[in-house]
């Protein structure tokens, strides 16, 4: 096996991507090849150094993150009350209110018309009654005088 292939295998080994069978091949080669042994040592050292040398996350950042989350938690309660209603629902609600207003306005005008009709009917009926009563009056007054016969009615006090 060529040393170039082994170098690639070393890289894979460091990344935990090498299969067990290949791992055995790798170590068998390394034990017999000083060049590749050196390569392995170097690569291992580099990886170890890079992984070991990591900056700590500052307390300031930590505090900032958790403060933001606290705010987020608080605001999520308000969100639940206020802003979880999507825009289209608000729009539909508005539309429904407008429709109801329009409907009741129409109802009102038709009621007013009905009322006028009833009023007119009432007036004509009233006129009719008045006319009839006039007619009756006239009839009554024009009747010939009738002679009243029989015993006069005694009025008992």
């Amino acid at each position, binding site marked *: 096996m060529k040393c170039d292939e082994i*170098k*690639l295998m070393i*890289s*894979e080994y*460091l*990344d*935990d*991507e090498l299969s067990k069978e290949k791992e055995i091949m790798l170590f068998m080669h390394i034990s017999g090849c000083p060049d590749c042994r050196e*390569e392995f040592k*170097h*690569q291992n*050292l*580099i*990886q170890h*150094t*890079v*992984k*070991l*040398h*990591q*900056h*700590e*996350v*500052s307390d*300031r*950042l*930590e505090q*900032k*993150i958790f403060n*933001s*989350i606290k705010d*987020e*938690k608080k605001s*999520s309660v308000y969100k639940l009350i206020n802003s979880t209603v999507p825009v289209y629902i608000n729009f539909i609600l508005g539309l429904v209110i407008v429709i109801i207003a329009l409907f009741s306005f129409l109802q009102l005008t038709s009621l007013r018309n009905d009322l006028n009709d009833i009023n007119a009917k009432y007036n004509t009926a009233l006129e009719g009654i008045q006319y009839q009563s006039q007619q009756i009056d006239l009839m009554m007054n024009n009747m010939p005088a009738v002679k009243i016969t029989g015993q006069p009615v005694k009025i008992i006090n």
Partner: protein
Amino acid sequence: MQNSSFVDFTLNYNKFKKPLFNYVLKIVKSEMFAEDIVHNVFLNLYNNLSLIRNPERIEIWIFTTARNEVFSHFRKNKNKNEENIEQYENKIDTCNIVEEYERQELIKFIEIELNKMDISQNEIYYLKEYSDLSYKEIAGILDITEDLVRSRIFKVRQKLKDAIKKLYKD
């Protein structure tokens, strides 16, 4: 419900804060921006925790989100980048007094070498070393093939090793 999601979040936060912060820091090269990005990623995570479909692979979500944030940051701050690199390198000089001298020299050297490389190379390397994702997962995040991931990481390692060899010879 609220509380259990908070516990979930805290667990994930503790697990990923360091690798995520370091990955972002190495790429944006500014502590201030890195903190902003990490802050946004975790806030996003908290808000979307219940929506993430596959909770076992949450690290993929985290690193993909972080990567998107990093690149949107680059788009916003195209011209400011140069000075940030300087700031960051000065910082390396002054911090970590506790660490032994040789290791400090080595890491400084490695970081400088990685900074010289193209972002397509060093990004993938940092992603691998800090996140511990598999080649396949990284391939998914970067939207490239697994073989390309393998060969890019290998190339970066070779470059680093060659540079270090050169350093020891000189």
